[in-house]
């Protein structure tokens, strides 16, 4: 760890902009105080890798509608509870009587549905490739058991086209190790051909510092590069079983990213064979166009175009207790991390 730290601390080459595209990286980088040991030539940008942050307001509106108008029990990761919708968050809906249950796993939502046959149970399926297999397993399990009271509200996303959309936002990506554990590394190798550099990184202090040190060293040549720095978890081929499962249950679709707009083929939805488990179809949800606060600059923050502190709402109208944008809601959001761990040590 000391070697890696020294390489980073002593860097004085040309300016390096490194984008971490995983909320857990953002969170750990702030928690460990890594920004404080960076020389001025290295800038870390928090990209759009927190599923909560890129979940559009309209998605929360759909969940609220399912809970309040259709009486469904919403099962969700805790991350989503406080995300503002157009009118209210799920926490707000809960105070109006909505049944909102926090779960650790989508499979727990299936168990809950089985134990409560008189209730309609909807799991909020957000997350990237790491989380998608869990949602697919849940749907397959529900289908195998013939559970008629379980469905998912899908907003799963995939990273490859997001990287392409973000090309040029940074000199190198810190790729999200747990996504690569599923997808493998071919997509990153392909990006090298497009001139996009990056390394796959794990999540411990050792792993993050090592990955940053590798970026610093490999940037010296000026050639695009790729390295897998999470060898103990990420195989080049990823998880064939997970990829097969995902392909069986879901298919690519266009997806809206909060702040970034629609990115073609960057989402996943249930295949027609599993349509019975799609909450939108099951409850005939109308199309929802969510409204976000126009002053919120989450979208630019996610693209590295501005810092959280450049947003007028930051720290005043928008705080972790009263979030306006999704980047402030999620503990992993760039704005929340800035606010909570940020550079306010000197007043």
């Amino acid at each position, binding site marked *: 760890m000391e070697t890696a730290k020294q390489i980073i601390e002593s860097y004085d080459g040309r300016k390096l902009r490194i984008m971490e595209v995983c909320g857990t990286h953002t969170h750990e980088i702030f928690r460990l105080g890594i920004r404080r040991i960076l020389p001025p030539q290295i800038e870390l940008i928090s990209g759009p890798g927190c599923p909560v942050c890129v979940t559009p307001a309209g998605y929360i509106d759909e969940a609220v509608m399912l809970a309040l108008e259709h009486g469904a029990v919403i099962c969700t990761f805790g991350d989503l509870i406080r995300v503002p919708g157009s009118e209210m968050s799920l926490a707000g809906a809960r105070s109006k009587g909505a049944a909102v249950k926090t779960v650790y796993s*989508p499979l727990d939502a299936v168990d809950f549905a089985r134990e409560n046959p008189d209730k309609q149970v909807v799991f909020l399926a957000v997350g990237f490739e790491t989380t998608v297999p869990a949602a697919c397993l849940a749907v397959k399990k529900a289908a195998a058991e013939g559970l008629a009271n379980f469905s998912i509200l899908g907003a799963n996303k995939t990273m490859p086209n997001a990287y392409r959309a973000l090309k040029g936002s940074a000199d190198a990506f810190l790729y999200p190790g*747990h996504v690569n554990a599923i997808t493998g590394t071919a997509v990153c190798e392909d990006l090298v051909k497009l001139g996009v550099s990056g390394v796959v990184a794990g999540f411990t202090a050792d792993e993050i510092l090592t990955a940053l040190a590798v970026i610093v060293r490999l940037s010296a040549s000026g050639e695009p590069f790729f*390295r897998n720095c999470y*060898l*103990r978890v990420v195989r080049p081929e990823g998880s064939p079983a997970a990829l097969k499962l995902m392909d069986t249950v879901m298919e690519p679709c266009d997806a809206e990213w909060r702040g970034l707009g629609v990115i073609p083929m960057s989402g996943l939805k249930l295949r027609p064979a599993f349509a019975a488990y799609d909450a939108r179809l099951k409850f005939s949800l109308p199309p929802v166009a969510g409204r976000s606060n126009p002053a919120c600059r989450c979208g630019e923050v996610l693209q590295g175009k501005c810092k959280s502190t450049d947003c007028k709402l930051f720290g005043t109208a928008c705080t972790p207790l009263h979030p306006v944008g999704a980047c402030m809601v999620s503990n992993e959001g760039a704005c929340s991390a800035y606010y909570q761990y940020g550079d306010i040590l000197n007043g």
Partner: protein
Amino acid sequence: MCVGLSARVVSIEDGTALIDASGAKRRVSADLIDDLEPGDYVMVHAGVAIAKITDTDADESRKIMESLDGNGETDH
């Protein structure tokens, strides 16, 4: 985006693994890993074991740094 937890596999039964992370135990799906055995370490996310862990982070980082000092190649 994905809180991952490294945990030891205690036992496996019907596609479900009992895992232990410093004494916190939970049943998780073992469907994604074929040759899982008790004693293996796995990365767990949202109730699913997503990958086997083959090394400690310290050893992994040391090897990567060494390869960087050598010919700049890693075995990726």
